């Protein structure tokens, strides 16, 4: 006989979101990254696509490995961003396609999308309709400006959202153009918020039985990450466009009026320094957050004469004479490899870390290696491929890398027949009529194969993954 305890211990092997189904209309980066985490946590995420309007990441020319035939299933960037999902192709502009999607939504817990605002409404899939199909549905929309407000129709991609949110202006050297962020920070972070919104609303549903529409804005997400600058303006009326700001990697810029902004004037040294060989990413950062840490650094450098100068004895002196101090430090750091330097500094009680490139993090970072940050999983086109693991460990319901991304349309037949009970004949008809594949092209081989073999094979999402 199975006791409750057995049930619980079986349950403990499961991922935490086992049993949650997500209809994933998202594309490019922010939305798919949100649903990627729901999949990793154990939800069955079904990505809805249409071959005539491909997800941009399926076309990313920088991430097709040499020797791999280019195509929508061959990009490394799409792979990691959509790991562990299932994929179907449905034309929602076709009445039969819309009907199929509605029947999928009626057996799903979450609907998530990152289209421009109100596209879903135009398709006849606004929240009112979603709720009619599934009364406790959690609907997360991730438009750039949100669904509410006079400029809801304005569009964003990561960089524009970062600019508008105030984030871009916080990065750079004084008197130079904003350096901004060298990637779509608000696609990564917007994605995290998409997942956070879905998970929060699911928790609320567990407690109350009620679903809801969560109206997330990518651009506004960025503003909430500039909170102290925001209060500096609303409380102190101090603008961030001012002399000596932003101060690069330093806490304050030498010679500029000393202002208590987020970083300073709390620490000097606080900068990036060149290391041995002077290559493009041969840099290390050092930050001394107290006089004691500075004293440790001076000792560790071998107490050079310049560092013993009275000008550097106090924080205010070091802030005032940062240029000379940084020059002295860099003469020393230039003689050491960045890992060696960071490890020896840490042992000497000095905060230092190497500037790590992508290659460094994959190949040279002993911590990420020890913690298993990258996991190899077989991918149909890319072979044994490294996927990024979760940055957290759940000891009761672990979430290892779940599996490869779907090839486009890979699971259409399975989902339609096994989950939604579509008759095999109707499915074939739909493939011929432009419901499940464009009429203008033949389905890819692996899609055709799912139609040629006896239909109705059970779908095991973990096994597929």
């Amino acid at each position, binding site marked *: 006989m199975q006791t409750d305890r057995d049930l619980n211990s079986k349950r403990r092997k499961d991922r935490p979101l086992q049993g949650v189904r997500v209809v994933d209309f998202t594309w490019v980066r922010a939305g798919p990254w949100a649903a990627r985490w729901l999949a990793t946590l154990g939800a069955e995420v079904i990505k809805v696509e249409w071959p005539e309007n491909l997800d*941009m990441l399926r076309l990313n020319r*920088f991430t097709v490995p*040499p020797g791999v035939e280019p195509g929508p299933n061959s*990009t490394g960037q799409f792979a990691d961003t959509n790991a562990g999902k299932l994929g179907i192709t449905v034309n929602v502009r076709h009445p039969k396609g819309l009907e199929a999607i509605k029947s999928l939504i009626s057996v799903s817990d979450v609907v998530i999308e990152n289209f421009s605002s109100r596209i879903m409404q135009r398709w006849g899939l606004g929240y009112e309709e979603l709720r009619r199909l599934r009364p406790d549905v959690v609907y997360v929309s991730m438009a750039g400006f*949100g669904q*509410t*407000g*006079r400029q809801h129709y304005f*569009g*964003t991609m990561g960089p*524009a959202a970062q*600019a508008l949110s*105030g984030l871009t202006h916080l*990065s*750079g*050297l004084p008197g130079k*153009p*904003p350096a*901004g*962020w*060298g*990637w779509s920070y608000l696609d*990564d972070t917007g994605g995290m918020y998409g997942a956070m919104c879905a*998970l*929060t609303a699911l928790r609320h549903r*567990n*407690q*109350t039985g009620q679903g*809801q529409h*969560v*109206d997330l804005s990518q*651009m506004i997400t960025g*503003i*909430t*990450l*500039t909170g*102290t600058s*925001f*209060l500096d303006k609303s409380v*102190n009326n101090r*603008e*961030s466009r001012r002399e000596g700001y932003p101060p*690069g*990697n330093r806490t304050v810029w030498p010679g500029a009026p000393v*202002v*208590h902004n987020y970083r*300073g004037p709390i620490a000097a040294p606080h900068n990036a320094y060149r290391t041995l060989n002077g290559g493009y*990413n041969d840099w290390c*950062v050092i*930050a001394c957050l107290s006089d004691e840490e500075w004293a440790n650094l001076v000792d560790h450098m071998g107490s050079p004469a310049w560092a013993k100068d009275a000008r550097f004895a106090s924080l205010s002196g070091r802030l005032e004479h940062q240029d000379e101090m940084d020059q002295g430090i860099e003469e020393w750091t230039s003689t050491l490899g960045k890992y060696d330097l960071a490890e020896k500094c*840490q042992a000497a*009680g000095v*905060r230092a870390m*190497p500037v790590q490139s*992508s290659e460094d*993090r994959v190949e040279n970072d002993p911590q990420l290696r*020890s913690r298993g940050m990258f996991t190899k999983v077989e991918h149909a086109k890319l072979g044994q491929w490294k996927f990024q693991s979760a940055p*957290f460990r759940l000891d*009761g319901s672990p*979430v290892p890398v779940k599996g490869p991304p779907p090839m486009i349309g890979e699971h259409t037949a399975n989902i339609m027949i096994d989950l939604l009970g579509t008759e095999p004949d109707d499915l074939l008809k739909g493939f011929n009529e432009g419901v499940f594949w464009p009429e203008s092209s033949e389905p890819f081989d692996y899609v055709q194969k799912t139609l040629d073999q006896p239909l109705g094979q059970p779908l095991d999402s973990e096994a597929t993954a």
Partner: protein
Amino acid sequence: MTANGTGNDLAGPLAGLRVLELTGETAQFCGKLMADLGADVIKVEPPGGQETRNIGPFMNDQTHPERSLHFWHYNTSKRGVTLDITTPGGQDVFRKLAATAGLILESYPAGYLPGLGLGYEALSASNPGLIMCSVTPFGQDGPWRDFQTSDLLHLAAGGQMASSGYDPEDVPDAPPIAPGGGNAWHIASHYAYISIMAALYHLDFTGEGQYIDVSVHESCSLTTEGAIAIYLSTGDVVRRHTGRHASPDESPKIQHATNDGGWINTTRSGSNLTTDRIKVLAEWMDTYGLAQDLLDEKYQDPAVVAQSDQHFAAVLRNFFANMPLVEAYEGGQELNFPWGAVRTMGEIMGDPHLDDRDFFVPVEHPELGKEFTYPGPAAIYNGSPWRIYRRAPLIGEHNEEILGGELGLSKTDLEMLKRSGVI
């Protein structure tokens, strides 16, 4: 009901969850995210207050633990108690408090709380639904576990700096740049929040709590978008560019100066310019007499368009150099170009779109007799509103309310704890 739902009595989505927060910079943002969504977050500070009260900026530049705008922002909606958990008396009170909690969020060095007898095993023994989330620089194990860090150090090791900086023609020999604002802690807090919500979902179906080990370094390392995928695919390491994606190639510039001293960001200009879109853009630019050759028939050939990224960027640069920022940005948006103005807080503060979403939230500071405007939420939860329930707690503000009223310590007990410096 107002746009962000603050005008009604609906509970927030995390109502009913009690959180004990023992964290400063590392994960206080995670606590704020939960508190503003309705969780009862109790900030447990050492007597005298937490060190984050010393982080600027400060109200009117008064360096004072109750005037830190940093502390104000990251601790809204929380209640606060002081407790010295290094003393047996403090540990005793903490155990009682932990028995009433659903989640403990902490960022002490690995091994510190278990060393005090306050680790997950000890605290969950009588509270099996308890979730404990530890957010530390490198996680609970590994060769770098005990390294000391800071926001700057994490952005270096996590890969943010290797992707951010300048084209050589803008700043020759520029260092990698760490974007400002404390985002290593934000990134870690976001993943901590995700892991906690997953554990709550698991709890709802099993009644079982669990221990969560979050690494700031892994969180940051996950947050450089395509850099890792590009390396894994081709072995290329991205190079830093001014105000746009780091990439293996010399991509066209997308951040341009406007004639009023502003900057506009056009995303990656080539990526959304089809022949149709070029025509739309060129006709608009032509009304200013600044379309140059973009109306030429040759740009109706996709093959020519595909090779003209750099040229389009140059024509746009000249166009923007003759336009004020807002006219350029809003004009482009009206034609469906997803462009953004590089804004500062002053420009954001007056944004009517944000006002429509009730983004600007008045928060009372009764002890000062003043009200200040705080930033609102990223998302509107239409069924269970986000709100700022109260300003950040003063030092020990809720000692009596929580330790006395809710935990049932007597007035004498509280007085004893106060005299012995425990609270």
